[in-house]
């Protein structure tokens, strides 16, 4: 393997590092280290996982093909196992060599040894007969077929279950007699082997014979096509534009609502279910869509935790900037944010695996790093599909399963549905097919060309509303920034779409007045925005609300002074010494102060007044003079320490002497022990040494740190290396050692 890697050209090495990026970081010291790293389990696992189904099947077939040290993997054998031709398989084999899952020995192609550990049961096939207990060779293929034709039904049933994998079965005690009978028959005819305990295994050769010499039931060397409905590009772009209009309006309404009434950030982070429901009803969308809008705004940095002591979710200053931009630019910002976010809005409301409760929007559980990769995969499928094709979700799922057979999550269908749904809401697709602007997004274009791609499909902004006597206003298109904000403030949105219907209510008008607008400003802005005069009932409504607005005032102070004698209060106001109290008169007989009541009382007394303190319900505070006491105290016993005495010292010295003697003995042992010296080696090298030794059935000297931390020297006969452990024998005993405890290894 190392020779193979050393023999590669620069281009081939570049291709390898490009396809297996984990090999490049940290940079390996030399090509041997690169080869060693490329054959580590973790790296091979990664490489195998990223294969598509065609490559995976070829690799499995190559692993299955009988190979010895003298006869390597033959393309024709692999092709025969897959029911294909050598010409078809060869490019795939070459590709697998490029990513160093195969290597070229002088005799020919070989599978990298670690692949066998990653793919334990390649194509659902069991171990070879010689590797199973008993180590007897399997019966020849024709004998298998002949024996099977005589098999009793129970035995046939077991074989049928094992043929296409999984190749192992458990026959627990209490297995029905008929089944146990069938298993016994199979064992007697050497068709299955017992692998200790209650397990049986179907040897690889037998399975291949039963499979008719094929490795896979359904070879899939070419990718499946997407199928679905065809849309015209115009319809797609028009639908996308309409969705974008809706989406931008929703984000604006979200920001308007949370700008006014920011919801609390949960202690665990995230948004309470109740708040999500509420924003859903405000936006008049279901919770799935509400969660999407919230998460999208968050991903685009348009809203965030405000970081205050009692934190709440609120729009960011970036929102204000974003809100002023034209619709196409606004879309480009959120669309790019969506493409790159690792948040998964579709998880909101579901129960996370292995936990209780539900996932909260904006919470840590809705952060799911695989989401970005999967989203990209789904969109790439759309991008590869012919223009205007709206693929069925099932066909996207098929295509993805082919592309990453080992890496699809169990929830693939849900992820695809969510991605397609979100893409539709974002106008990345229109009626299921990729829109022009969506394609630009996938191509990674910059902000301005993205916006330009969306611009023709968005309705032109309007700068007027139609005011009606039933107290509604209708904007017959998307409103330009400032006016939209004003309308949302002064009226409630009643219906959304191409146009927006606003309804004026006393509450909504009061909201505008609370926000600091004056009556004349409200009416003036409305009449400027309308081509027709402001209807009299609307004008009346605004003025009527304004009439009552602010009639009563509410504020907070820390102390009040009340006195029936207005002259006394007047004197207090005029007294310069009382100015630190910042007294203010709110009625002829009441003064208020932002200073604590006790301080006010003290100040007044010092300045010749004789106030009495009042309780909140109007009673007089009577201090219990001279009887101030702390609350009841609990007493704790004092801390004491014991010293060092003779007895302790004697014991300690004895122990130290014994330790020294043990160390001397150890040094003596080291000097006289057999075998080479063991410099410490790094685990990658240790693994390579052990793996080679296991394959060549050689013994190695190991330094092994035991449970007490002492390093032992062992002469070890490794048999197999898997899962960070090495299995083998030492001094005639079976032992399993953890690789991370091996301090060094050298061939003995």
């Amino acid at each position, binding site marked *: 393997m190392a020779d193979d890697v050393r023999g590669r050209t620069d281009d081939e090495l570049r291709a390898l590092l490009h396809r297996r990026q984990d090999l490049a970081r940290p940079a390996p010291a030399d090509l041997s280290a690169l080869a060693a790293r490329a054959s580590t389990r973790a790296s091979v696992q990664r490489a195998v996982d990223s294969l598509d189904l065609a490559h995976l099947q070829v690799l499995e077939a190559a692993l299955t093909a009988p190979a010895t040290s003298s006869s390597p993997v033959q393309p024709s054998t692999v092709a025969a196992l897959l029911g294909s031709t050598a010409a078809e398989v060869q490019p795939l084999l070459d590709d697998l060599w490029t990513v160093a899952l195969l290597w070229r020995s002088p005799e020919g192609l070989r599978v990298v040894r670690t692949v066998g550990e990653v793919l334990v049961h390649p194509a659902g096939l069991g171990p070879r007969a010689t590797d199973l207990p008993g180590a007897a060779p399997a019966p020849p293929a024709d004998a298998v077929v002949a024996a099977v034709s005589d098999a009793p039904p129970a035995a046939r049933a077991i074989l049928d279950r094992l043929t296409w994998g999984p190749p192992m079965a458990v026959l627990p005690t209490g297995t029905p007699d008929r089944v146990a009978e069938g298993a016994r028959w199979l064992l007697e005819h050497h068709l299955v082997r017992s692998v200790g305990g209650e397990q049986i295994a179907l040897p690889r050769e037998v399975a291949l014979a039963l499979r008719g010499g094929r490795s896979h039931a359904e070879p899939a060397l070419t990718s499946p096509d997407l199928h679905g409905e065809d849309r015209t590009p115009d319809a797609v772009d028009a639908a996308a534009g309409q969705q974008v209009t809706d989406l931008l309006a929703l984000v604006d309404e979200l920001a308007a609502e949370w700008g006014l009434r920011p919801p609390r950030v949960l202690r665990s982070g995230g948004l309470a279910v109740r708040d999500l429901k509420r924003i859903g009803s405000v936006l008049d969308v279901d919770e799935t869509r509400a969660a999407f809008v919230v998460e999208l705004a968050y991903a685009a940095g348009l809203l965030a935790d405000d970081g205050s002591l009692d934190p709440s979710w609120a729009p960011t200053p970036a929102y204000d900037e974003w809100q002023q931009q034209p619709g196409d630019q606004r879309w480009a910002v959120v669309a790019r944010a969506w493409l790159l976010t690792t948040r998964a809005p579709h998880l909101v409301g579901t129960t996370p695996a292995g936990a209780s409760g539900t996932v909260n929007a904006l919470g840590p559980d809705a952060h799911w790093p695989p989401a970005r990769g999967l989203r990209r995969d789904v969109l790439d499928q759309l991008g590869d599909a012919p223009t205007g094709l709206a693929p069925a979700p099932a066909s996207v799922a098929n295509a993805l399963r082919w592309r990453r057979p080992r890496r699809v999550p169990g929830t693939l269908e849900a992820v695809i549905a969510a991605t397609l749904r979100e893409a539709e809401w974002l106008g990345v697709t229109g009626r299921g097919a990729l829109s022009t602007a969506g394609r630009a997004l996938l191509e990674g274009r910059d902000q301005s060309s993205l916006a330009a791609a969306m611009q023709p499909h968005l309705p032109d902004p309007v700068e007027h509303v139609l005011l009606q*006597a039933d107290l509604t206003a209708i904007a017959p298109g998307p409103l330009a920034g400032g006016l939209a904000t004003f309308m949302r403030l002064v009226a409630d949105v009643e219906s959304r779409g191409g146009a927006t219907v606003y309804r004026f209510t006393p509450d909504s008008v009061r909201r505008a007045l609370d926000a600091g607008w004056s009556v004349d400003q409200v009416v003036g802005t409305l009449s400027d925005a309308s081509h027709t005069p402001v209807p009299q009932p609307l004008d009346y409504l605004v003025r009527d609300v304004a009439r009552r607005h602010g009639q009563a005032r509410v504020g907070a102070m820390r102390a009040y002074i009340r006195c029936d004698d207005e002259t006394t209060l007047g004197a207090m106001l005029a007294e310069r010494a009382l100015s630190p109290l910042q007294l203010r008169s709110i009625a002829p007989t009441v003064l208020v102060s932002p200073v604590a009541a006790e301080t006010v009382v003290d100040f007044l007394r010092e300045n010749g007044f004789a106030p009495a303190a009042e309780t909140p319900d109007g009673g007089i505070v009577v201090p219990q003079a001279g009887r101030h006491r702390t609350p009841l105290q609990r007493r704790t016993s004092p801390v004491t320490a014991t010293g060092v005495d003779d007895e302790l010292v004697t014991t300690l010295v004895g122990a130290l002497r014994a330790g020294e003697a043990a160390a001397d003995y150890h040094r003596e042992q080291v000097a006289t022990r057999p075998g080479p010296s063991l410099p410490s080696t790094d685990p990658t090298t240790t693994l390579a040494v052990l793996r080679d030794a296991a394959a060549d059935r050689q013994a190695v000297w190991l330094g092994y740190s035991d449970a007490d931390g002492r390093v032992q020297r062992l002469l070890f006969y490794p048999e197999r290396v898997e899962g960070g452990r090495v299995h083998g024998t030492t001094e005639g005993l079976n032992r399993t050692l953890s690789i991370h405890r091996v301090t060094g290894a050298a061939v003995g």
Partner: protein
Amino acid sequence: MTDGPLIVQSDKTLLLEVDHPRAEEARRAIAPFAELERAPEHIHTYRVTPLGLWNARAAGHDAEQVVNALITFSRYAVPHALLVDVADTMDRYGRLTLEKDPEHGLLLRTTDRPVLEEVLRHKKIKPLMGERIDADRVLVHPSERGHLKQELLKVGWPAEDEAGYVDGEAHRIDLDNADWSMRPYQQQAVDGFWHGGSGVVVLPCGAGKTLVGAGAMAQAKATTLILVTNTVSARQWRDELIKRTSLTEEEIGEYSGARKEIRPVTIATYQVLTTRRKGVYTHLDLLDARDWGLIVYDEVHLLPAPIFRMTADLQARRRLGLTATLVREDGREADVFSLIGPKRYDAPWKDIEAQGYIAPADCVEVRVTLPDSERLAYAVAEPEDRYRLASCSPVKIPVVEKIVAQHRGEPTLVIGQYLDQLDELSQRLGAEVITGATSVAERQKLFQAFRVGEIDLLVVSKVANFSIDLPEASVAIQVSGTFGSRQEEAQRLGRVLRPKGDGRTAHFYSVVARDTVDAEFAAHRQRFLAEQGYAYRIVDADDLGDVPA
């Protein structure tokens, strides 16, 4: 993006820009499947509902036409989900068909077996069904035809009723067209009804609904049962029918508390039909007394619940519902649709007004400010007493006097809810008062005097809500009402909408107490006015002098 007059919203409302050159074209295209919800001055709002879509299917429109109408007239892209929803919803209609089989009688047939299986398992539908004939057909008892249709509509699988109507006992009825003729919209309403077989015609008060009834009877040429709200309106129906049709006094019977006549054309009150003795409806026989060919429901929005149940049994007869508004405060619009039939004709009031058939109206809300003592009393009152307290405030009386004085000489009605208040008003204004306690004879005498102009001012209670015909009332002043009832508002406005001989504008005043529930309810009612296209103004009582008389 086209420049169409229609904007399709994601909540399935359609906004129609009235001033657009293609607005009328678009209105005609969407009217078959969308309900007109609001008709203020600039933009009319229609709503697409499953019921409307199924009605369109029943009238022979298909999903393609609907989708096409939306796409053709829409200014922006139509939300795709809405189009899919339209197609899906309309596709649900007609999977089940009620039909008459010569061998088995009434049965339900399906073209989609899973649907039949689904409805047969529904716990409310199961008991209505008879024996199963084969995989696609199930017997239905004729008396359950209405219930079944009602329940099927509720589960979203409306049945297409092809079982047809019985012709009923033939009786010759002609319109007496000597000195008048049907107005175009009335004719359209009759045609729309007759074409559909059964259904509801929505026309504003004063637009001549009685004549639509007469027209339908002339089409049916069969014995007719007319159900009305009270005896006064029963007499008016009789007078109108004698005047406008070939029917004579002998042919028309009255079935009410006072008289029990059954004749080829019988006019019965809801009240007598729903009278119960020992828990039994004693007058139900009336429905079977003759082989009625047509049943007319006047003021169908007031149809009491027991009548619904009885109507469910009358599905084989042609049914015509007449009303000014389909708004029911009890929300049972769907029952009206499934039992009487879909809406067959509807026109915005303003349109009919523009054609000169109803009087133009000036609606004014007059706000009075309660004096401090009353405001305090109001603030501490129990919630259930607040409305009465606010709407009966004595400060309203001088305001009413002022309005009456401004319109001196014009026929004026003062309408209220609370008798004490009405009595006081009648004393102060020196006018007669008509309440539920007034005898029929006295009532008719006063109405007649009002009609001929001997008196020009009447104070009336709730009795004025329904079908009294006061042709020359041109000013109505309402001082209190049944909370926020929009239906009542429609009826009261109707009192002044009858066309005036001299084309005068009608005036409709509401006097409300500021900052109280009275004003809140008034806002609710006024929204209805505005949605019907009537601009209204709000003035303070102190500014009343500015109101042009």
